[in-house]
């Protein structure tokens, strides 16, 4: 507040761009792609973008929770892969109903979160390194479980028979609009309320801000860090199941590509409206930005395999702005 007054002309440009830069960029990108392509601004295209970003957003929301307590869950992509593989296999291999299948995945993801939470709170190892290790472990478990192959309806089992089960149509609906978009919005809303309106969210931010001071203020730091990792894994699991519902198969490592998008979305989110902290709304805006960028570039015929260059650059920019801001 003070800085803005001191800078003479009344506006501190860095602060202004920091707060509104992401939103302005989104508007500019929409204008640009709208002019540069014929069908960017159609209803189908816009719904397409939301559908495209929904899985990224759900996974990124979980990641945001781990960032809020000063952690960093790198294993969310692998957890999503695992959830994807397990839910499809429950249907196709084991002919289970939706309730059982989803329950199994939820229990499994909570277990992943418990393991991550235990490891990061029990050892003095940086969260990012610890979850880098579990990322590979979980990815390996998912691969081993699927024997390194894609699971799909009517696949041929090792015994030579066709897989017995089928994927319920209701489950498939979860991967189509409007449900996929509704699930995403509900996830954003829940975490937004948790972080900004509840005692627990306040505690999580305090832990992320200064863990030692939080501990000495009587906040059960380990418990909240633990819970954050369980929730991160749970949201990654939901993301993986929605992915399964959308593609109706379990590809090898299907969740892995979502990791970088999720990280980028969450870090872009730091700056949205000047919050300076990981936050649910910001993460959503970050995902929208990435979604617009990807879809727009695809329409401009930029090949999919070049997309990581753009996304990586956007992530580097978001990180640069966040860390620059912290020092100033």
């Amino acid at each position, binding site marked *: 507040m003070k800085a803005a007054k001191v800078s003479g002309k009344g506006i501190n440009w860095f602060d202004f761009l920091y707060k509104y830069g992401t939103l302005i960029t989104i508007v500019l990108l929409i204008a640009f792609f709208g002019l540069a392509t014929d069908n960017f601004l159609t209803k189908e295209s816009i719904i397409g973008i939301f559908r495209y970003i929904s899985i990224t957003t759900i996974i990124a929301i979980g990641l945001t929770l781990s960032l809020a307590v000063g952690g960093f869950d790198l294993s969310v992509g692998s957890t999503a892969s695992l959830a994807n593989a397990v839910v499809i296999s429950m249907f196709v291999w084991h002919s289970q109903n939706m309730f059982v299948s989803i329950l199994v995945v939820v229990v499994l993801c909570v277990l992943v979160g418990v393991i991550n939470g235990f490891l990061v709170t029990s050892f003095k190892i940086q969260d990012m390194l610890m979850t880098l290790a579990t990322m590979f472990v979980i990815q390996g478990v998912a691969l081993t479980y699927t024997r390194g192959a894609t699971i799909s309806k009517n696949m041929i089992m090792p015994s030579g028979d066709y897989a017995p089960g089928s994927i319920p149509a209701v489950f498939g609906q979860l991967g189509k609009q409007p449900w996929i978009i509704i699930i995403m919005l509900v996830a954003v809303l829940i975490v937004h309320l948790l972080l900004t309106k509840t005692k627990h969210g306040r505690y999580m931010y305090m832990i992320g801000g200064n863990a030692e001071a939080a501990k000495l203020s009587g906040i059960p*730091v380990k418990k909240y860090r633990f819970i954050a990792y369980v929730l991160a894994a749970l949201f990654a699991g939901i993301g993986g199941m929605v992915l399964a519902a959308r593609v109706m198969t379990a590809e090898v490592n299907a969740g892995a590509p979502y990791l970088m998008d999720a990280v980028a979305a969450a870090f872009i989110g730091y700056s949205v409206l000047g919050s300076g902290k990981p936050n649910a709304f910001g993460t959503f805006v970050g995902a929208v930005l990435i979604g617009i960028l990807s879809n727009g570039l695809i329409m401009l015929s930029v090949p999919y395999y070049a997309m990581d260059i753009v996304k990586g650059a956007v992530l580097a920019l978001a990180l640069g702005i966040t860390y620059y801001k912290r020092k100033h």
Partner: protein
Amino acid sequence: MKPNEKVKLEMNDISIAFPGVQALSSVNFQMMSGTSHALIGANGAGKSTLMKVLAGAYDHYTGSITLDGKQLPIRKPKDAKDYGIQIVYQEVDMLLIPNLSVAENIMLEKLVHDYKGKSIVSWKKIHKEAAEIMTSVGLELPTGKLVQELTLAEKQLVLIARSLTMDCKFLILDEPTAPLSDSETSRLFALIERLKQEGVGIIFISHRLPELFQICDDITILRDGQHVISAPIHSMDQAQVAQHMLGTQLEAQFPERSSNAGELAFEADNIADGDKVHGVSMHVRKGEIVGIAGLVGAGKTELCRILFGAAPKTQGDIRLDSKRISYKAPHQAVAHGIAMIPEERRREGIFVEDTVGVNLTIANLTPHTRAKTWLSRAKERLAAQWMISKLGIKTPNDTTRVANLSGGNQQKIAIGKWLLADAEVYIFDEPTKGVDVGAKRDIYSLIAELAEQGKSVIFASSEMDEMIGITDRMYVMYDGKVAKELVTAQTSEEEIMFYSTGGQAG
């Protein structure tokens, strides 16, 4: 180094100021090589600053440093080293490279300076030279051992050995014995004796009077950045030294209070952490202010952290209202009604990036919520504003960032959050450190008021006048143990200082 060649080091009229503090005013210091000289003073007296000037850590001091009458223009560490003045700082780990070998660490300065322009290092030669110096300081280790595997005492010897690789006429040791055991200390003293024989002048900073009398020839005492006295050490006794360290101080303004100690509230039995605290027992009554006196490094902070569950203890029991309680983390201690205001305010006591309101309610958020979950901004604001006016916190409003407030006001916030939490036992660790006079007075009356309300207060401080001014009773700590229990009305600052510096009742 030629043993017979005695040189005289003089520091004349040294003054240095930092923003807001005149750290040294016209201090004189002189000594001969081949002698050992004790430099002593209470916390903040300027001992370390004076030695840092000598070691070239500052370039904005006034005054002169001479060697046998010849001016030494020391403005940077390299200058001091070139003139043969070497320093071993207290924080040994900051000066060592943990993942390199002992030999490489010892020869570090040589590697940097002697190999300018060369690229190829003869490791054989380095290890051989290092081994010779290690023998001379009594360090019996393989030269290839990594420094991170060494004990503190060994690391210290590595640093002393490093000083000896260069021209070393004067060696400054800043509180070298603080982390050492008795046998390690006597090994160090033997080395100091030998270095003296070889003509090195040793400047020895320590809070421990007995060892100064054991090892030093002369003594210089500083107080509040000024030179008090220099004399042969045996012309004084420990009590006189303690007196010179204290001098006559301006009376701080302490609140009038009469002791109204009630029944026993908080007891700790034989507390130890296997490191800095060795078998401390203490008790506090309701409405009583009990001091933990002692100099920096006596183990006060460590004890406070253990009592609050913020650091693990290896033995000991804690009882509250005669019931044994156990807790392993601060949030469990808080549930028993124990609160602590930590020493390192900015790092541990407050959230500088957050608002005054958030900081004040964080220790007890539940009453400011609906259904124990949903934050109520209105309730929070009300509580924060009440506390702001109660403590006289100078802030535009409750949404101001704490980073923008002064140290005294930040400390009031660190205390205020626990007043809102309404604990029964309050532990204060150096609550007036870095706080201006006006805020100090406010903090004292706050603490007195807590006792008035029947709360138990533990007050740790290295300021002796605070012990006299605010407490009912105190435990004087030295080397992680309670050296003496004193009743405030029957003691003096001199007596506290006597026990704080290792004096024995005799």
